[in-house]
């Protein structure tokens, strides 16, 4: 039978508390420092309750009081303290945890790393853990994003999975018409990938709501997506871009523009990129792809503005609609 909160105490029969018991309880709560972790009304958080562990990995053995039978080394001391705190005296306030041997080992290792040297370690040598993100989109679009579980595959603002592209700045990258069509019927952009985005059977209104939200909210502060006007490139620029694409940069080894001749399929197909992406995004991407998507495979060419502009002009000409698969 499933227990509910209501019958939690149904079999516990307590006598009404006496004033002595209450006073004793209060004393115990104070001694054990319950309020250092639990919120208890009328009780303040005790100060200097537990020792500061900063630099514990460098503490001198002479300053440590070892319990009986513990080897006089720092790791052994830590291990004994974590496993059996009460062997260091009945008054020890540290609770008896039930860690597995592996957890104790991991804790000792982590504590040993808290040395004085670690405190002065230059910031660039530290590997920071990824902070948890509790990012939550709001409104109607937020509801759709939650319903479709976009976060299982896509990361947005540090939250989500890594199975599909990070969408944090997607609004700067793509064009509205393409995005609405894609949300309604996602086709694949990368022929080599086996994973496919599922079709969610969104209504027109839902797809448009989602697209508008993405375009309005998920924009990079690094540049203005409308800075370059895709319609203003000259044919000469586009022709120069074509030559750069096929000769200087050999983009066809990884991308397909002309499906008949190009074979590379590491990166996305670019045959319809002119209706898919914004000119400014392409231009910025060519100049430093890692700045827009850290860890992306496309090498940073440190391309000159002139080359990047010509290539953007060529790519914006590629307006073949991708056939859906």
């Amino acid at each position, binding site marked *: 039978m499933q227990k509910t909160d209501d019958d939690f105490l149904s079999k516990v029969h307590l006598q009404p508390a006496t004033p002595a018991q209450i006073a004793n309880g209060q004393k115990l709560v104070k001694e054990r420092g319950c309020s250092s972790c639990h919120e208890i009304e009328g009780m303040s958080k005790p100060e200097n309750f537990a020792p500061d562990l900063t630099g514990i990995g460098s503490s001198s053995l002479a300053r440590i009081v070892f319990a009986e039978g513990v080897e006089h080394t720092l790791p052994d001391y830590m291990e004994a303290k974590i496993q059996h705190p009460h062997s260091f005296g009945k008054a020890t306030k540290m609770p008896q945890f039930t860690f597995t041997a592996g957890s104790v080992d991991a804790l000792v290792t982590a504590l040993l790393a808290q040395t004085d040297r670690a405190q002065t370690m230059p910031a660039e040598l530290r590997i920071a853990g990824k902070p948890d993100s509790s990012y939550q989109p709001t409104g109607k679009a937020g509801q759709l994003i939650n319903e479709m579980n976009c976060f299982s595959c896509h990361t947005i603002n540090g939250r989500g999975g890594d199975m599909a592209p990070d969408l944090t700045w997607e609004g700067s990258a793509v064009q509205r018409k393409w995005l609405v069509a894609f949300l309604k019927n996602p086709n694949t952009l990368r022929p080599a990938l086996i994973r496919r985005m599922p079709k969610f059977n969104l209504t027109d209104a839902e797809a448009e709501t989602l697209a508008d939200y993405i375009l309005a909210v998920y924009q990079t502060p690094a540049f203005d997506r409308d800075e370059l006007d895709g319609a203003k490139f000259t044919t000469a620029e586009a022709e120069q871009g074509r030559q750069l694409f096929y000769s200087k940069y*050999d983009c066809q080894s990884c991308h397909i523009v002309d499906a008949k001749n190009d074979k590379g399929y590491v990166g996305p197909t670019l045959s319809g990129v002119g209706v898919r992406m914004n000119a400014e995004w392409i231009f910025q991407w060519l100049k430093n792809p890692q700045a827009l998507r850290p860890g992306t495979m496309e*090498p940073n060419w440190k391309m000159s503005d002139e080359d990047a502009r010509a290539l953007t002009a060529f790519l914006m000409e590629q307006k073949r609609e991708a056939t859906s698969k």
Partner: protein
Amino acid sequence: MKKLLVLAGPALLALAGCSPARRAEPPQPKAFGTALVEVGGSKQEASIGSPVDQPVVVQVNDAQGTAVAGALVSFHVPGGGVAAPESGLTGADGQFTTSVSVGGATGRYQVVASTRDKTGKAIELRLDEVALGYQETLGRELNVMYCTRCHNSESTAERVSNHDNLTAKAHDFTEGDVLNKMSDAELTSVIAHGGPALNRSPEMPPYGYTLSPAEINALIAYIRAVADPPYRSKGAVYASK
């Protein structure tokens, strides 16, 4: 005390590998073969001190090339590697399977499998496994991120190889006979500045602005570690008179 044991782990494993007292008594062979051949499991990579992914499988054959069941095969991995189980009898298919861990030093470990023929003459088979140190392991990760799609002709379920789409075929990093001839400086040039730096295919793009010098060194260390035939450093090169 456990902590110290963990630190002394590789050394103890090395000792255990040599100590006959610890070794379980091998079973008595029921049959004898004349040849020992590899079924699979050589040339794998693992970080130092850890097991290789796939088990090592060998097969005992007789003079006609037929599999022999019940032949005794024993393994040892000199230099601190471990094979578990160390010895046993071949199954009905004439094969024996063991899992191998490489030792604590970066480099190549030889897995020595041996069996005896009827006359008691030892038959040995030596298989190579590669132990990757910190730098090589970092290089392997970078390889997966940036290189493998073109430099490895094998496709997996996760990624399809782009190797066959290139006009100039990218060299697999295990191609020692080509890559061993290139100096570290040449590899650095090609990685940092792309194929045209050494008058090679422009399909190899420059990664000098994407990877840091330390990362390029790590990649080269990885390329050297997996080269087959193995790479031997020329050491310091002096100007000749």
